[in-house]
């Protein structure tokens, strides 16, 4: 039995060990950190000290004083101020909106690529992933210029708005700027899984649907769309999860209105130097994202079991 699985085991241990060391262990360390007190100068309150005279490490935690080292206070603090919950809700909202806009924009594009001539298909896919070849931060900075008050884009929009009597707008440092940039950054992650799915569709199914009386909309809604759902789910996960935790984009484009939960977490670690609370925020973010994905999967399964009645 072991011999039979030896090959499997051999090829699966490097990624397993890798994930164990660099994901599972840090996650556990973070859970530990979330239960402790911040140190005086950042970091965590140490659990031990080195005796200067002997050079020995002495553990300070005892059966009697462990409450001075471990606490659930960091979690209760989360509920103490509504501003944290609001920030969570807002971040989920931004991520959801980004996902939705990406889906609406990416679907027709992915469909066109999948249905285009084999010869130019690879070129079109290449164009979709081309932005990855320039640095992420450079691309975000580019949006600072595009959305800035003196850019040709801003001036052109304001000129058009002026024609219909609307006062000039500024775009930078707003939720609008954050969403625009989030969509831009994540669009390829939606296009690629959708393309991979749509490209495999059996086109004779569309012929059959049409033959049996389905018009163009019905052919899409009853055949193409349900068959593309795995691609939609994959794309949505690839956009939603990174968009939820992002901090660079709201940092640079969001101003005070546009900050997200990622900014708060970053702030806890780098500015407030409150690692335990930063850990709590991270854990809650991860757990709620997983919970949401699980809920979506349940709803998805229930709706497919119900058939298309």
């Amino acid at each position, binding site marked *: 039995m072991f011999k039979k699985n030896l090959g499997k085991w051999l090829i699966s241990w490097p990624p397993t060990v890798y994930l164990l060391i660099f994901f599972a262990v840090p996650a556990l360390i973070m859970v530990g950190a979330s239960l402790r007190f911040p140190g005086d100068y950042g970091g965590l309150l140490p659990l031990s000290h080195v005796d200067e005279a002997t050079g020995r490490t002495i553990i300070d935690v005892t059966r009697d004083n462990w409450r001075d080292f471990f606490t659930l206070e960091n979690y209760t603090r989360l509920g103490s101020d509504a501003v944290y919950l609001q920030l969570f809700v807002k971040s989920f909202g931004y991520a959801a909106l980004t996902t939705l806009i990406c889906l609406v924009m990416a679907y027709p594009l992915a469909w066109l690529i999948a249905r285009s001539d084999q010869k130019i298909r690879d070129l079109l896919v290449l164009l979709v992933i081309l932005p990855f070849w320039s640095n992420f931060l450079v691309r975000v900075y580019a949006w600072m210029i595009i959305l800035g008050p003196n850019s040709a884009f801003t001036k052109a929009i304001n000129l058009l708005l002026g024609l219909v009597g609307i006062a000039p707008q500024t775009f930078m440092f707003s939720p609008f700027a954050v969403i625009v940039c989030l969509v831009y950054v994540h669009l390829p992650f939606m296009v690629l899984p959708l393309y991979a799915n749509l490209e495999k569709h059996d086109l004779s199914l569309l012929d059959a649907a*049409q033959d049996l009386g389905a018009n163009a909309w019905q052919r899409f809604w009853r055949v193409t769309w349900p068959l593309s759902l795995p691609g939609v789910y994959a794309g949505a996960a690839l956009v939603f999860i990174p968009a939820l935790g992002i901090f660079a984009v709201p940092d640079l484009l969001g101003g005070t209105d546009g900050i997200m939960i990622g900014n708060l977490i970053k702030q806890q670690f780098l500015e407030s130097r409150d690692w335990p609370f930063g850990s709590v925020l991270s854990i809650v973010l991860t757990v709620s994202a997983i919970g949401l994905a699980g809920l979506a999967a349940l709803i998805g399964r229930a709706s497919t079991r119900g058939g298309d009645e």
Partner: protein
Amino acid sequence: MALLEIRNIVKRFGDFTAVDNVSLSIGAGEFFTLLGPSGCGKTTLLRMLAGFEMPDGGEILLDGKNVANVPPEKRPVHTVFQSYALFPHMSVADNIAFPLKMAKKDPAQIKTQVAELLEDVRLSQFGNRLPHELSGGQRQRVAIARALANRPRLLLLDEPLSALDAKLREQMQIELINLQKEVGITFVYVTHDQGEALALSHRIAVMNKGKVEQLDIPEKIYGFPKNRFVADFIGQCNLLEAKVVETGSERMKIEIDGVGIAETLPAAGVQAGTRGTLALRPEKIKISASLPADVADEVHFRGKVHDCLYLGDVTIYIVELENGLLVEAMLPNSASGQAKFFDDNDAVEIAWRFDAGHFLAE
């Protein structure tokens, strides 16, 4: 009036003429087959009937109305696709209900109708299964039930049995014949399998290079192929080069190249010297170690066995005549206790009645 009337239909793809001025009419309740090799235009013609291709010229009259430019979803014509094209995300019942939903039928009515259709194709127990959970034959039946659900005026079948193995195919052929009788809907069937066409059809149109070579009942198509292509395509056929020696009203004399004089049925529009081909089915040729030479009405030659193909029920003997010409003869292995009558290089004699074959003028 014919249910379907195709008039001078033409379809070109660039320089290639896929369907070249085809006219034919199909009656209500008929099982009509378009038969031909791949690339002969039969599938293109079917796709024009379904509406997936627009003809470049001509008319398609369905119940007297020209539907040539009506899109597929608006035609009372449904198709059973070669790959079945069942919707993989829908249950069997939902697949069958699809055309009824598209026709906006009442949900309660859809439910009873789907149940009836499932029963018709003996799949009542399988309504909740997904297509990939069915066998090939079952999928085939779902595809047929789905295409019949809305009771189309015309059912198009595009090589529907080609994905099945030989045994299942024969069984499905019988089911198709019975189903067609039962529902009384006109079937237009496309196949490249001549055996299937002969077994199923009321009438067959043999197509080649975009044209109809011969349109007739199966017995005539097989027994009296109109030209060399049909004779060669349908079944096995000896095609012997010959020229007319003497015409007559009852029979005529021809000279088979390098073999000799033979009598055959008179052909229309030929005269002494007309060149052509004698088409002769292998099963109509007698073969024996020795045959009486001077039987009336029989053509008689000597040769030796060049090759033989043992096929179980029959054996095909390829007989080399004295001048090197090869003729195929077929002999049933029906005699008990005997599997094979001759071996390679055995001297044999062959003979056929004058009306066994017929002369195709060039």
